[in-house]
């Protein structure tokens, strides 16, 4: 009977699993709306339930998902829900997942679920905070499941606003500057995407098949029907489209030189928001490229792949150097994100299957390790109320459990073999070495590997090793159970997918192969 229900809800025609995962948080938000402001614990508990249900459902989704069906095409999509929404503009409510989105949906639900206990200590505007958090979850999940460009855009905007408020209201001293900066950057990205969105629609209408359906648009792009003969200001329409969408998503990744919103946003954001920002929001950039940007302009993508790879390379090395120079713990972690996300672009730019796999794997790996790093920073910030690396030292002897958990996170970020970061870097580098146009880049990217090790170990040294620098730090309690519970699952995932990467890669591989087909790389 249970199987029957499962089948009804999830599988087959008319299943609504994806809608459930997407909209349960909003239901939670509506429930919280009716809870009196002062009932903090009830609000928190409801938030926990409203994020826990999607988490459970996303695990179920991963189990029910059949990787062998491939991905990136309309036929390969699973758990499809498709209804006309605004027929005048051919806008559909069109959801579906493949091997690229399923792991990221799980990661998203997990991080949001972790964000609730991580936010337990927030006392200011609890009600509003958790409502925005739940709205944020719907927005992000929606982006991962939407297969209609317009729907995607709605979710994309829906996600940005709660983020703006969460940084701008619950952030640190310079929160307004950071929030405005975040907003303007992402707004610039949104505008570019919007232009692309409308342009694609108008072009598809010109070709006689007006639609926002991403799968259909990709099919048109593949067969050369998407604005093939158009040129705007001397440049082909496809090239314009590619760059508009690329910049829109690249700001989110972020790439050098569009990255400076990230350190500011991170430094000001409260810990759980940093976790979500680094852990999953940045992934939307990479995911958007794979789902929308590249398939809608495959030729331009192939042509400019080398540029993408160079951007990734610059991000890797430059981000690592800048991270090393930081004295603010959180800023260091933020710049390490810039560096690590560079691998994603380098992998995509290699045009090789293993490179794509490396980039996609890195999105997941970095999602766990960077989230863990921000939680680690949060623990010490809660105690010391500052993040100046030069004022810490010797905490390892007073806070052994904290030091142990932190080491797991740090070494995962360092790319230690047996941790997920290594698999991602290895695949990316192999992919980059396979591509004739990216081979030389491996030589430079590999310098980033050493620099990364250096700044991470140096951080460990400055925080945990050496003699205790400040007598007051001796009074710090070790990591609490709540904090440990937030971090432990992330650490376990870092190790699990580092030791058994096929658990993740088997889910992604057929979809990546499908994507390679869509991009004309096979």
């Amino acid at each position, binding site marked *: 009977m249970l199987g029957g229900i499962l089948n009804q809800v999830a599988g087959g025609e008319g299943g609504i699993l994806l809608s459930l995962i997407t909209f349960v948080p909003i239901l939670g938000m509506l429930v919280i709306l009716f809870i009196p402001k002062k009932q903090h614990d009830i609000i928190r508990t409801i938030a926990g339930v409203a994020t826990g249900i999607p988490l459970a459902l996303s695990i179920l989704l991963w189990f029910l998902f059949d990787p062998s069906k491939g991905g990136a095409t309309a036929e390969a999509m699973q758990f499809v829900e498709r209804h006309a929404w605004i027929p005048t503009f051919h806008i559909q409510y069109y959801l579906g997942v493949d091997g690229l989105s399923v792991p990221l949906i799980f990661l998203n639900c997990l991080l949001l679920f972790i964000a609730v206990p991580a936010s337990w200590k927030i006392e200011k505007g609890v009600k509003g905070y958790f409502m925005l958090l739940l709205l944020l979850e719907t927005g992000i999940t929606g982006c991962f499941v939407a297969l209609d460009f317009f729907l995607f855009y709605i979710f994309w905007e829906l996600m940005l606003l709660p983020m703006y408020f969460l940084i701008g209201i619950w952030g640190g001293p310079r929160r307004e500057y950071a929030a405005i900066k975040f907003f303007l950057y992402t707004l610039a990205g949104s505008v570019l995407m919007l232009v692309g969105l409308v342009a694609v629609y108008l072009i598809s209408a010109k070709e006689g098949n007006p639609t926002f359906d991403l799968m259909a648009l990709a099919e048109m792009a593949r067969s050369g029907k998407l604005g093939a003969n158009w040129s705007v*200001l001397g440049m082909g329409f496809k090239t314009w489209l590619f760059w508009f969408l690329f910049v829109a998503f690249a700001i989110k990744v972020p790439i050098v030189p569009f990255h400076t919103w990230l350190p500011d946003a991170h430094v000001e954001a409260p810990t759980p928001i940093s976790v979500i920002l680094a852990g999953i929001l940045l992934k939307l950039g990479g995911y958007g490229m794979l789902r929308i940007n590249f398939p809608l302009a495959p030729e331009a993508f192939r042509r400019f792949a080398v540029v993408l790879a160079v951007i990734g390379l610059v991000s890797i090395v430059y981000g690592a150097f800048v991270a090393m120079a930081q004295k603010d713990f959180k800023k260091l972690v933020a710049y390490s994100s810039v560096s690590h996300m560079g691998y994603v672009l380098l992998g995509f730019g290699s045009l090789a299957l293993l490179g794509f796999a490396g980039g996609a794997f890195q999105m997941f790996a970095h999602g766990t390790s960077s989230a863990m790093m921000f939680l680690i920073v949060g623990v010490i910030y809660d105690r010391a109320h500052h993040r100046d690396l030069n004022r810490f030292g010797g905490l390892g002897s007073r806070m052994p459990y904290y030091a142990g958990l932190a080491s797991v996170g740090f070494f995962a970020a360092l790319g230690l073999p047996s941790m997920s970061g290594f698999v991602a870097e290895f695949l990316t580098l192999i992919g980059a070495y396979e591509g004739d146009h990216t081979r030389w880049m491996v030589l430079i990217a590999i310098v980033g590997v050493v620099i990364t090790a250096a700044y991470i170990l140096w951080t460990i040294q400055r925080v945990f090793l050496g003699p205790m620098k400040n007598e007051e730090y001796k009074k710090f309690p070790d990591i609490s159970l709540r904090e440990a519970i937030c971090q432990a699952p992330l650490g376990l995932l870092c190790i699990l997918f580092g030791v058994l990467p096929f658990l993740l890669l088997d889910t992604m591989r057929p979809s990546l192969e499908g994507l390679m087909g869509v991009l004309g790389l096979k």
Partner: protein
Amino acid sequence: MDWHTFTTVDFAWMLAIPALPLAAFVIQIFFGRWLPRKGDWVPTTAMGFALVLAVGFFLKAMGIFDPTLYIQSSNPPPGETGLSLAWLFGNAPSGAPNIVFSVLFDNLTAVMLVVVTGVSFLVHVYSIGYMEGDKRYGRFFAYLALFSFSMLGLVLSGNLLFLMVFWELVGLTSYLLIGFWFEKPSAAHAGFKAFITTRIGDVGMLLGFLIIFKHFQTLDIVTIFQKLGETTGDFQHWPGWVTAAGLLVFCGAVGKSAQFPLHIWLPDAMEGPTPVSALIHAATMVAAGVYLVGRFYLFFSPSALLVIAMVGSFTALFAAVIGVCQWDIKRVLAYSTVSQLGYMIAALGCGAYSAGLMHLMTHAWFKAGLFLQSGSVIIGMHHEQDMRHMGGLRKKMPITFWTMLICTLALCGIPLFAGFYSKDAIIAGAMHAAAHGGPALWLWYFPAIALVVAAGLTSFYMFRLIFLTFYGEPRSEHAEHAHETPWTMTVPLMVLAALALFSASPWIFNGDVLGHHLWFPHVVAHPEKVEAGRLVVEKAAEEHGVLPLVMSILVALGGIFLAWAFYYKKWLSAEEWARKMGWFYKAVYNKFYVDEFVMKFIVRPVVFHWNVACAAFDKYVIDGIVNAVGRGGVEASEGSGWFDKYVIDGIVNAVGFTVQVFGGIARLFQTGFLDQYLAFTAAAIALGAVLFFFFL
């Protein structure tokens, strides 16, 4: 005989060898503090069982006489079941590039397993005494177990990627254990230095692996050898990329085995507890580089081997010279280790395959012994390491003294002691290489000369250590009151001393004093080519010139005599000779300024100039532009400017957009959301359409 000689069950039991310490690590790290004796017996017992298993497989391997049955991978031929794990992709189509975990077992593996489990077990026992009372006593054993797991995994890996995974894990445990007393800044810094320095070598190794993967689409060692045989025409014609990839892989060995110029981390690594120095930084981990070269031997082209021989012999001589001028007892041994690792590398480079790996084994026994004995001295001296404050310990610590003397004689290469047989074979191999040469004939003289000179220096600095420590008058309070250490520490010393005597040639049983019938070259022999998935080995060649034998004995005795004259009889004054040497002595004393050079030209620019420059660029240039654009927008919106049309509109729109969206959000909570979306999306579409037509 086919690959079924060892069955899947055997391979599973082999995996149990690393699994035992892994399980011990997990138990110890999570529950150690609640176990009796803080759980020190858990890893120790696990290592004991692992040792038994390893010896079992060693004996089984010795029982197989077919010399062609040399290498065995658990990765089965197509169509058969074996013990392997498709690691990267579980369901990749066959033929697609993948990484498959498998066990690789041959005689070299068998020997390494015994060496690693043996030394590790003894070090565990020794640590019970040495680490007593330490506040992180339990965790020390957990780290030791983690190290043993990683090292055993390294030895058993049949795939280069997994070799690298374990390679990095031993590096991690080395980092953790060097910095075990991390409250001491020097210890914390030494761990950092070790990790980064070896990682530089590892990056080269990774690059080598990438090249191999590009050409062969696999990292399985046996498959690589097969494909290499096809590519090189049975190892006759070497394409340039093979040499390049081989040298890059060798970079990893240079880092791990502390070869010049990446040797700088090893002396500093002595900040770790002494059992760690014995296990990791003398016997096993630092030998992993040598093991890598031995395991991957077929891949090295003749030109690559020349480079390897040069690096190894230069390091052997270079470190031996520095060792002469050190005062810290552990640093003398550290430079000695660097020097002896140079011997092994040089031997492999010269083609003396068995000799190099035999030296790996004998060195593991006697150098682990020497470190443990120095640890015993240090404990007896209440944590004093400077030899200038020792003296006269012979009577007070008799067991330590006698066992240390045996190990020292083994290191010096005195006949009857194990080190003699391996070192003599190395020098014979180097001289053979010099006599028969290669493409660049005269270059091959260098290893032979360097290794002979270094042998003399070795016995000089070792007996300098012996005389300064154990003879003469006590030169400090601590030396007066030194005492012998407990049995948990002295028993391992005696076992290692026995191995330092008999492990190469059991002459006491068969009278083979000159080592004409050593067992080792018959067991681990020079690989020649691959046939049908198996490595064919050269029949053990027995190079035994009289000249190398006489030379190596003479220089060893000469070195001992000089040390005796300087430090026992005091006929010659060390201080005066140091003065006479002038700048040269100063350079040696300062370790030829390699650390200073690295600091000034590599570390400082990276840490203090480049990254600060990058950060400044980020802050002032990139962010400066961003902020300027923002300010410009605000100013322009107050007046009116030329980019009214371009920027203001954007900002105005942005503001309008924002306001609208904020309003929308506010109302979302009240009226459901669909209507608001429609209004919002209509506005967005209008905006997009305007922009689009503007661009058209």
